[in-house]
């Protein structure tokens, strides 16, 4: 059965079209929305995005496999992304990684069996000053210590966004909910 975008995503895509001189530009947003609606990028969801952006499935798949935040493998509902690049590694990112691995029972790059949490090692998050840096669902947790891991995992399992993230101080809380595309 052919996949469809959710109404919300369709609205976002429709408004996006006017912003770019060429339709093809909405391919990456379309892939992200397909991922948001249907989990990881399967062949069907890649084709859905390809049709949206007017490119062939092969090209869309080429784009999907190029960017590492477009996940073609299995991916959990929540992402824990740990920066393992140099500054964070110097500050002890390895300990954070092993603590998370221990807590979740999975290794880097894997997803928990319930499909809730994926543990990813990522490249520099531009947070080297307060390293090690961890992003949980794209919210920055700076100077992250292994002791904090447990709280993060617990709140994700409880369905809450973990506390202690940088968020956007002073930002509009309603707008913050929209992030993702």
């Amino acid at each position: 059965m052919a996949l469809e975008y959710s109404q919300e995503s369709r609205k976002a895509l429709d408004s996006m079209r006017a912003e770019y001189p060429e339709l093809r530009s909405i391919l990456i947003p379309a892939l992200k929305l397909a991922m948001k609606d249907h989990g990881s990028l399967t062949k069907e969801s890649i084709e859905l995005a390809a049709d949206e952006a007017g490119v062939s499935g092969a090209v869309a798949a080429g784009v999907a496999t190029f960017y590492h935040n477009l996940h073609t493998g299995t991916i959990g509902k929540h992402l824990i992304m740990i920066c393992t690049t140099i500054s964070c590694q110097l500050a002890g990112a390895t300990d954070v990684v092993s603590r998370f691995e221990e807590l979740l029972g999975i290794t880097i790059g894997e997803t928990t069996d319930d499909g809730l949490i994926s543990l990813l090692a990522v490249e520099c998050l531009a947070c080297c000053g307060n390293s090690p840096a961890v992003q949980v669902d794209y919210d920055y947790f700076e100077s992250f210590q292994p002791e904090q891991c447990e709280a993060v995992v617990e709140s994700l399992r409880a369905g809450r966004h973990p506390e202690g993230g940088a968020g956007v101080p002073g930002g509009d809380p309603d707008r913050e909910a929209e992030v993702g595309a």
Partner: protein
Amino acid sequence: MSGTRKTLKAHMGEGIAPVVRLPESDETVTFTIDGWEVTAPKGSTILQAALSEGIEIPHFCYHPGLSAAGNCRMCLVQVDGRPKLEPSCIIPAADGMEIVSSAENVTEARKAVMEFLLLNHPLDCPWCDKAGECMLQDNTFEYSSGKTRHRMVKRTYPLKDFSDRLMMFGDRCIKCTRCIRFLREIEGGEEFALYNRGADVDVGTYLEHNLSNNYQGCLADVCPVGSLISKQFLYHSRVFFLEASLGICTGCSAGCNLYVDRYENRVARVRPRPNLDVNDWWMCDIGRYEWDTLLDNRILSPRLKAGEAVDGEKALGTAVEALKTAGDGLAGIVSATATCEEAFLFDSMIRGMGGVTAPWYGPQGRIDPTDKNDFLHRKDPNPNTLGVESILENASTFDDILTRIESGSVTTLFILGADLTDEIAGKLGGVAQIVTITSSESPASVAASLVLPGTIPFEKSGTFVNGDGRLQRFDQALQLPDDALTEIGILSHLITECGTGEPCEDTAEAFAALAGTVTAFKGLSFSTIPTGGTLLQIRGDA
């Protein structure tokens, strides 16, 4: 500058420069490569200019028919003493530029690129179909250090099956993206793409879609290594066994230029021969893979009726007899698949005996109405429509002859190459003598009272006029048995026996006779027709 110029001999043979399309410009630029002065139209890149002059600069990702990608980094040269080496496929040539392509830093960089490319390339030349015409092999031989310092495990990819025409040995791929650019820029579809990134980059359709385009054979051609392989030729032979002869595709009126590669008097494969006026560097899959339909239901010996064999001498005698006794009832049908020389001899034979000739363009049903003219393939399935039309200038039409047949005024019908339909063949009952010269069984041969075996295009030489009015010559690829005659041999024999003309020993003589009679061919001779063909002053259907 003394010494000999280094020419691109690896692929093209000594002294033959590869076909490069230079930009059209009235202005020219003059610059030097290793001290050799090169002049090229303004806008040419260094590599284009060098190749068109026969100067070798090694390259992989550059293909003269595609945009330059600049990603293989093999064509790096020193330009005007700039600090970094520049890719010659990208940098436009400018007046007074001084290019160095043989200095130590350049050869060093080439060795490095070769070493990088070979890090993960399997050592499977012995069983790779590309071996012998592989750019990686040639450039390794010429430009690599011959050693590797890589000690780790090579990266591997699974075999990929794209369609019944094409497969991919991913290990051999050097990620030059020629195939992707071919599909994007020439074919128009984007069925191929790069996947992943960094060292894991892969090429393919990814979504497990099969390729469906009509130009898959070209993908195997553009692949500089043995990664994309044409299944038809897979393990068929080795390229160094093959001998090439110049051919013309008979699949449609485009008249794509071919190399017919043969091995021990068998056609191993056909591949496009670059001709910038006709087919550029390409040909379609119908022409490339479906030529073997010519061999279907082959007629190999003369016969009277179906199954009633007759020896050659006697068959020719019967045909002469038929011609001589025909009188007013003589008519001829010549197919638009016949060569110009055959059509001319046939026409002069029929007219000499007082008959009329009509062209046959094949039944309408053979042309698929959904078939579009794509960038190469034409709707007209006959390779020589314009040629036959211009030779039979004062001839009758097929419908006219059919009317005469139905009215019973035709007693003897000669058919050259035409297959006719069952419906038309059914109307031939009233014709006393039907002589068909054809290479394969068809309604026309079934209805015939005498069948003389013809040849397929690989077995003869001749000329075709393509849909643009371009006269092109092709050579005989396969040897015929000693006692076999080509159509020209048969027609020449009949003409001589009937006393209506001079005998023609070979195609060249037939062409000379043609050139002496038909206006459009005036002043031409068979041996001087350029390999790229020559435009005739006749109307084109383009």
